[in-house]
């Protein structure tokens, strides 16, 4: 593994662990401080991770918007486990959070059509759900054309 690849991995792991532990992503300054680098040093790995579709930044900033399945800003998917609560970017990601954490979870959302609250429970790796259907509007090959919309 090259030096850049190793640095990217270090940054990625810190971002995800911080996001899980704190419920929000670290700033570039926090990543730099933790890895004993300058903020400028962190920009290159941030951009490489963005290009690799690992991190998504708020437009025109180095503020992490998504480290999928985690989302920094409120969405219609709230995931709660014994460790904490996070926003999932979409229902795929909402299910991805307990999968990533290997924990039971409650996922609260609402039907986009009628606004009726919906809740799903994951226990022991099994999904308990009475009804409902998932819908993806954007075909797979166009997901990253506009990941915010997707």
């Amino acid at each position, binding site marked *: 593994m090259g030096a850049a690849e190793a640095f990217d*991995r270090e940054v*990625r*792991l810190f971002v*995800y*662990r911080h996001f*899980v532990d704190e419920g929000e992503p670290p700033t570039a300054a926090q990543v730099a401080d933790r890895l004993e680098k300058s903020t400028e040093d962190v920009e290159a790995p941030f951009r490489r991770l963005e290009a*690799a*579709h*690992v991190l998504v930044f708020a437009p025109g900033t180095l503020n992490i918007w998504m480290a*999928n*399945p985690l989302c920094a800003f409120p969405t*219609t998917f709230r995931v709660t486990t014994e460790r904490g609560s996070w926003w999932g970017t*979409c*229902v*795929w*990601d*909402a*299910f*991805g*959070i*307990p*999968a*990533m*954490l*290997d924990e039971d979870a409650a996922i609260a*959302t609402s*039907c*986009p*059509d*009628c606004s*009726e609250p*919906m809740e*799903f429970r*994951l226990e022991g*790796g099994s*999904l308990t*759900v009475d*009804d*409902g*259907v*998932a*819908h*993806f*509007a*954007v*075909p*797979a*090959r166009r997901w990253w054309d506009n990941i915010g919309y*997707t």
Partner: protein
Amino acid sequence: MLAFRSEEHVDRWCETRGIPHGASFSLQQAWELGRRWYGDKLSPDWRRATPDEAERVFTDIGLTGDFWRLRA
């Protein structure tokens, strides 16, 4: 990707907003997708799936057809 109460709600939502109907599938399949896609995301050795690997995940859980193809 959103969760709706039923296919009827998907159809009405798409029609009201002028959004073409995409792909509908069960929440169990969505959970399986989350499990397969993100289960190892905190591993130091995680790496992004290749397009072939990603399409294999979709196929394994019954998400097939042109909608789920990553390449033209």
